């Protein structure tokens, strides 16, 4: 299967700032790709280059088997849902959705049918005659989606589409976006800085930082087996434990850390500095048993109640550790905790 | 094609301005170097301006009248705009403002003429004063510098009320609340907060007044008559009676230079592009 979009070694600078540094990316047909990263990571620049709003300094963009690098937005098979939706305030909802079809000289009858279809798809079948300013934020978002989908793009680009919505609506729209994407079967590329949004939506998650792709793959893999230190701390939280490779034994890597000598089942370098990443939810309360890795005993410095769990910072160990305890656990700052984890939950990072 | 779009859109306006504004000014500069008769081109017209007292007297008159008008108009308009913005209830403010500038929309020739009706020897003011027995003889009010100044001030009070009102309304009320909260009384709030924050608006309005007043021919011609000449009257005199375009051009360029110097002098306070 050939990719719908292929980004080949694209670089772009704004003045002295490198916005994108030799980025390559393939987007499969009918997939939901999420570009995830902090502000300034280059994710929006990459989306603009895909949409044709920016021509990259170097590299090429192929869409549907065509070199689109220098094609203007109007002439490439992409459509963009803008961050503030950019609905045309002087047109009705129907006029907005029909706009792209008008530009393509679709006959009136067919146009009206397709507008109705698109509005039905996003759950606003009766909104055609209303004005954008009469709609709620969530409804505007749906109109913007319908307006872009009605022209049947090969790729739909979404620039922080849920950023303007409140949290509850955001989670709800998230589910709808995913459902709509599966129904229409168009490839979606979605930019966000919200890692929960990314994990909930993505088939393919691309983590970006400083103009580079740090990691990409299915969100489960990226979360559980992050490739870099940045990914381990940006996609959810991790405690990073510095270490030195001491050698290999029985297909396991032996690493000296401030917490003592640990053995990890992994392929690893034969020597040098490495980092171990440990998710807070994998830190267990109590002394190690059997296969467990003892992490030592420390003092609780901070407890933050998060609803479904308590986020605890434990100090007095060789490395301050983040852990999650059940919400009903009576832990308080100053308590002493003995912690351990399972070796399979420790991720060995060399980058 | 898309590379041409900026030039296709900006080009016509730029071309228009170059052809019908810059080119005439260039021609005017060239004309100002020509003598009316005789010799070749030279600075004769400029020399004439600086050596003939009746010529540069017109510039002095213009500057005096314009300065007086600007100061008077600001002093009259500021308290008026303040009353409109602060003391008139919110829902009536728009109406109050529209009323305050309604005569602005009359023809400006007619506006000057109306003051002639008021100030003439048989006019309303003299009629009232003589009728009331306060005067035995009518005063000479029309055809004086005072009449010119009154006519100008009338126009510019309206203009300045508009701009000062706008800058007073733009002021966020929280500044004043903060000042009051920190212990400033109404007077100190005004002096330290309101006045400095509205000063840019005042400066822009005052500069506009200066530019428009110094270049106006109609008001001094109708109300001031020919008792003393202001620059625009002197310029028109050269074109009208004598057909002396070279001297008129030189005088015009001197007037432009004065405005430019005034602009550079207060450019610091004028950010015209923000208006």
């Amino acid at each position, binding site marked *: 299967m050939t990719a719908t979009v292929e980004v080949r070694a694209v670089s772009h600078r704004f003045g002295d700032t490198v916005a994108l540094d030799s980025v390559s990316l393939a987007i499969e047909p009918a997939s939901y790709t999420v570009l995830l990263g902090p502000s300034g990571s280059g994710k929006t620049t990459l989306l603009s280059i895909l949409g044709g709003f920016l021509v990259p300094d170097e590299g090429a963009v192929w869409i549907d088997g065509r070199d689109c690098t220098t094609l203007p937005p*109007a002439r490439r098979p992409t459509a963009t849902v803008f961050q503030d939706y950019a609905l*045309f*305030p002087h047109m009705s909802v129907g006029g907005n959705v029909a706009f792209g079809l008008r530009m393509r000289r679709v006959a009136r009858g067919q146009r009206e049918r397709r507008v109705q279809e698109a509005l039905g798809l996003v759950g606003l079948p009766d909104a055609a005659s209303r004005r954008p300013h009469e709609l709620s934020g969530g409804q505007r978002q749906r109109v913007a989606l319908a307006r*872009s989908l009605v022209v049947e793009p090969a790729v739909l680009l979404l620039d922080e589409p849920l950023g303007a919505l409140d949290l509850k609506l955001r989670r709800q729209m998230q589910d709808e976006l995913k459902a709509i994407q599966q129904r229409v079967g168009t490839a979606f590329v979605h930019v966000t800085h919200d890692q929960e949004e990314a994990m909930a939506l993505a088939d393919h998650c691309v983590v970006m930082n400083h103009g580079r792709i740090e990691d990409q793959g299915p969100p489960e893999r990226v979360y559980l087996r992050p490739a870099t230190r940045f990914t381990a701390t940006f996609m959810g939280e991790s405690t990073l434990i510095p270490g030195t490779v001491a050698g290999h034994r029985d297909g396991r890597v032996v690493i000296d850390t401030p917490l003592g000598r640990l053995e990890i089942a992994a392929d690893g370098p034969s020597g040098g500095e490495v980092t171990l990443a440990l998710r807070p939810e994998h830190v267990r309360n109590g002394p190690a048993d059997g296969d467990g890795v003892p992490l030592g005993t420390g003092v609780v410095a901070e407890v933050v109640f998060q609803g479904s769990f308590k986020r605890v910072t434990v100090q007095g160990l060789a490395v301050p550790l983040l852990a999650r305890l059940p919400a009903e656990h009576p832990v308080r700052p100053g308590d002493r905790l003995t912690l351990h984890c399972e070796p399979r939950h420790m991720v060995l990072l060399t980058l | 094609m898309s590379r041409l779009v*900026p030039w296709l859109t900006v080009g016509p306006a730029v071309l228009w301005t170059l052809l019908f504004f810059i080119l005439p000014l260039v021609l005017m500069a060239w004309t100002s170097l020509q003598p009316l008769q005789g010799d070749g081109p030279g600075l004769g017209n400029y020399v004439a301006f600086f050596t003939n007292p009746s010529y540069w007297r017109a510039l002095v008159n213009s500057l005096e009248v314009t300065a007086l008008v600007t100061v008077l108009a600001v002093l009259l308009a500021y308290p008026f705009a303040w009353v409109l913005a602060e003391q008139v209830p919110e829902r009536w403010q728009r109406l109050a403002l529209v009323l305050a500038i309604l005569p602005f929309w009359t*023809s400006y*020739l*007619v506006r000057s003429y109306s003051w002639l009706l008021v100030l003439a020897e048989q006019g309303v003011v003299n009629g009232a004063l003589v009728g009331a027995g306060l005067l035995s003889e009518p005063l000479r009010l029309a055809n004086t510098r005072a009449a010119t100044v009154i006519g100008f001030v009338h126009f510019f009070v309206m203009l300045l009320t508009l701009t000062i009102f706008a800058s007073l309304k733009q002021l966020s009320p929280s500044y004043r609340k903060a000042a009051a909260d920190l212990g400033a009384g109404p007077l100190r709030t005004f002096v330290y907060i309101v006045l400095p924050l509205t000063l840019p608006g005042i400066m822009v309005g005052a500069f506009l007044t200066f530019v428009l007043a110094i270049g106006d021919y109609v008001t001094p011609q109708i109300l001031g008559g020919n008792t003393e000449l202001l620059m625009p009257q002197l310029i028109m005199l050269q074109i009208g009676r004598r057909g002396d375009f070279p001297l008129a051009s030189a005088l015009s360029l001197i007037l432009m230079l004065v405005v*430019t110097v005034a602009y550079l002098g207060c450019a610091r306070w004028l950010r015209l592009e923000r*208006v």
Partner: protein
Amino acid sequence: MAHRLPRVVGALYAALIYGFIFLPVVVLVLFSLQATTLPVPPFTGPSLRWYDAVLSDRRLTAALGNSLLVALLSSALAVVLGFLAAWGLARFRPPGSGLWRALLTLPLMVSYLIIGMGLLILLNQLGAPRSRVSAGIGHVVINLPLCFAILYSQMGEQQARAEQAARDLGAAEWQVLLLITAPMLWPALFASFFLSVTFSWDEFIIAFLLTRFDTTLPVEIWNLLRAGLNPRTNAVGALVFLVSAVLVASIELVVLRRRRS
């Protein structure tokens, strides 16, 4: 009592300024309504004699037509040129855009008299006749900077993004301009057209210098003014004021109603 004093002083002052502002207009209208040949006190009772005289004056009605024609056409041109330039400069920032912006707003700083005289010299050089066309050209020169400045200040981010969206959906540049930018800027376009019409309608010195036979209304009023105090001038002035007042009032009403809805 003490804190009511400023309000009383304020009200008195406002009344005084309103009086100053309206005094000449009231006098003008009042004495346009009396039949005597001099518009001076004492007021001798209402008569529409001079309105009748003015409205049946061929020269004045012809000048009125010329004024309207020049005002509407020159304003339309000024708005179109100003709109295109503002859009091009705001959106594409072509090289030297600061310079072009300065050039386009420069005429605001120059007195109408000088602009008119410059154009007169240009006409003389070209051997072209003075006419309604040359006056119209002059009015575009004075109104273009205004239209440009107003419209340039309105080219905001919101329009820019809507334009991007339109391009993304396949619109060509002219379609973006016609279907997105112009409708979104409709209030500003209307305002700059209205202001231009008012300025052109009222403009005297350029029309005086650049027209010869097809003069505009202000030039005809000027000719009337030469006769000194003249009830015809009162009548013309009162009529112009009435029309402007009705126009301004109706625009106010439209704006207010729009804002309410």
